[in-house]
C-alpha cells in the first residue's frame, strides 16, 4: 500500500526541494549566464540576471586564444582511455574477489584503497623522473596509465560490490549446465553486471576528466587536456569575469551534458555497496 500523500505536503516538498536544488546549482548557472555578458556587465552593480545584451564575444576571444577542440579531444582520450583500461584490469580482479573470495580478499581490497592515499605532490618528483626515462612526458598514453592507476582502486571496489550482489546460485546453475569460466563471465555475469559497470564507467570518467594535478604537471603542448586549458585563465587581467566564465563553461559543459543524460545510470549504480 502506498502511503497516502496530501497534495499540500507534496507542494511543500516540491517548493523546498526546488529551492534547495536551485541554490546548489546556482554557481553553475551564474557562471553560464556571466559567460554571455560583456566584461562591464559582468561586474555591474547591482548584478544583472537575465536582462542584459547577450553576446558570444567571450567565447570567440577564448577560442582565438586557445584551440578548444584540441584540449577537448585530449580530455576525451585521457578520461576515456584510462576508464576503459581500468575496467579491463579491474573486471577480472573484482570478479575473482567477489566469487572466489579467500581469507585475504578483504585485506587486498583495503590495501588497494590505501594506495590511493599516496599524496600526489610527494611523489611528483619520482614520477616525473620515471616519465622522462620512459619518454612518457606529454603523451596521452602516459597520462592514461597514471590516471588509470589512480582510479583503479575505486573501480575495483565499485565492481566488487556490484558483483557481490549477484546471487551465487545463478553461477552454480550455470556451472551445472556445463558453462566454462569464459561463458560464465560472458553470458551470465556480464548482463547482470551491466548497470554496475555502466555506473563505474561514468563515475571514473568524471573523476578522470576532473583530475587536475597530474594532467597539469605531466603535459605540455601536445597532450594537454581541459584542466590545462583552464589554467591559462586562472588569473585576472583587467576585467576578466566574462572570459573566465566562458572558459569555465567550455571546460565543464561536455561532462555536465554527459552527466545529465546518464544520471539515471549513475544514480542507480553509485552505491559502493552502501545498500545491502
Amino acid at each position, binding site marked *: 500500500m502506498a502511503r497516502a500523500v496530501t497534495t499540500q505536503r507534496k507542494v511543500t516538498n516540491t517548493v523546498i526541494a526546488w529551492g534547495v536544488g536551485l541554490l546548489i546549482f546556482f554557481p553553475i548557472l551564474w557562471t553560464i549566464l556571466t559567460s554571455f555578458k560583456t566584461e562591464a556587465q559582468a561586474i555591474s552593480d547591482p548584478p544583472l540576471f537575465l536582462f542584459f545584451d547577450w553576446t558570444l564575444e567571450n567565447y570567440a576571444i577564448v577560442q582565438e586564444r586557445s584551440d578548444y577542440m584540441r584540449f577537448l579531444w585530449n580530455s576525451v582520450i585521457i578520461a576515456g582511455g584510462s576508464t576503459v583500461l581500468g575496467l579491463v584490469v579491474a573486471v577480472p580482479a573484482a570478479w575473482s574477489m567477489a566469487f572466489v573470495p579467500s581469507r585475504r580478499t578483504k585485506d587486498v581490497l583495503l590495501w588497494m584503497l590505501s594506495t590511493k592515499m599516496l*599524496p600526489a*605532490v610527494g611523489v611528483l618528483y*619520482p614520477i616525473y623522473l620515471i616519465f622522462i626515462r620512459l619518454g612518457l612526458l606529454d603523451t596521452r598514453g602516459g597520462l592514461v596509465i597514471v590516471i588509470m592507476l589512480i582510479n583503479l582502486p575505486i573501480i575495483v571496489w565499485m565492481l566488487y560490490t556490484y558483483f557481490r550482489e549477484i546471487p551465487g546460485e545463478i553461477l552454480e546453475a550455470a556451472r551445472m549446465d556445463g558453462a566454462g569460466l569464459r561463458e560464465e563471465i560472458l553470458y551470465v555475469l556480464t548482463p547482470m553486471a551491466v548497470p554496475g559497470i555502466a555506473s563505474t564507467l561514468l563515475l571514473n570518467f568524471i573523476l578522470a576528466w576532473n583530475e587536475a594535478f597530474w594532467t597539469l604537471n605531466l603535459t605540455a603542448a601536445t597532450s594537454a587536456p581541459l584542466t590545462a586549458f583552464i589554467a591559462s585563465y586562472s588569473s585576472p587581467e583587467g576585467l576578466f569575469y566574462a572570459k*573566465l566564465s566562458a572558459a569555465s563553461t567550455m571546460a565543464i559543459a561536455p561532462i555536465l551534458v554527459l552527466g545529465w543524460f546518464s544520471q539515471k545510470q549513475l544514480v542507480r549504480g553509485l552505491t559502493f555497496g552502501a545498500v545491502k
Partner: protein
Amino acid sequence: MSTRHSRSAARLMMAPAVVLLLGWMLVPLTMTIYFSFKRYLPLRGGDLGWIGWENYVRFVTSSAFWPAIQTTLVLVGGVLLITIVVGVLLSVLLDQPMWGQGVVRILVIAPFFVMPTVSALVWKNMFMDPVNGLLAHLWKFFGAQPVEWLSDVPVFSLVLIVSWQWLPFATLILLTAIQSLDSEQLEAAEMDGASPLSRFFYITLPHLSRAITIVILIQTIFLLSIFAEIFVTTQGSFGTRTLTYLIYQRVLESQNVGLGSAGGVYAIILANIVAIFLMRIVGKNLDA
C-alpha cells in the same frame, strides 16, 4: 567442484590489478624514501649526499608542521561534517514525493561534474571577491559590510567550496541507501504513533549508517590530498596550508626535494593512520 582450478584462475585474474598497483605504490614510494634520506637540492646541483634522518627531523620541527596537520584535519573534518549532515537531510528530502524529482536531482548532483580548478576559480572570483563578488553584493544589499571570505574566514571558505563539490556525491550514495529502506517499516512506526523525528532517528539514520561510513571513507581518501582548491584560492596563506600543500611548498617552491620527500613519507603515515582507523569501521561493514 573445481575449487582448486577456480582458485588459481582467480589469482591469475587478480594479478594484473595487484601487480600494477603494487608497482604504482612501491616504485614512487621507494624513490621518495630514497630521496628523503638525501640532501637533494635540484637548484644547487641535485644530489648532495646522504644525511640520515635530518630531513625527517627538520620537517617536523619546522614551525609550519603542526599548524599544517591541524588545518588538514579541520578541513577534512569540516567537509565531512557538512556533506554528511546536509547530505542526509537532502537525501531524505529528495526521497519525498514531489513534482519534478528528476530535475531537482540533476540540479543537486551538477556540482560533482565541475572540475575542482573551475569551481575554485568561480567561487573565488565571482562569489567570494569582496568588491565584485556576488556575495559582497548580497551583503551590501542588506546593508552589511561585505565579508572578505578568503582572508577573514579562509578555512571556512575552503570547507564551503569543497563541500559544495562533494555534497552531490554524499547525497547520491545516501539517497540510494534511503530508497532501499523498507517503507512498511516506516509506516508501521507511523501507525504506532512515532513522530517523524523519532522515525528519522530510530529507523532512517541507523539504516544509513553503512552508507555514511562509505561516504566518510571515500571522501577522506580524496580530501586528504586536496590541492587545486588551495592553490587557486589562497596558495596556503592565512592558515590554509595543509600537509599536502606544505609538501608542495617544500618540493616545488623551495626546491628541496629531500625535505619534501620526508614530508611525503609523513603524509603517507598520516594517511595510513586515518586509513586503518576508517577501515576498521568499514571493514566491519564490508562483512555485513
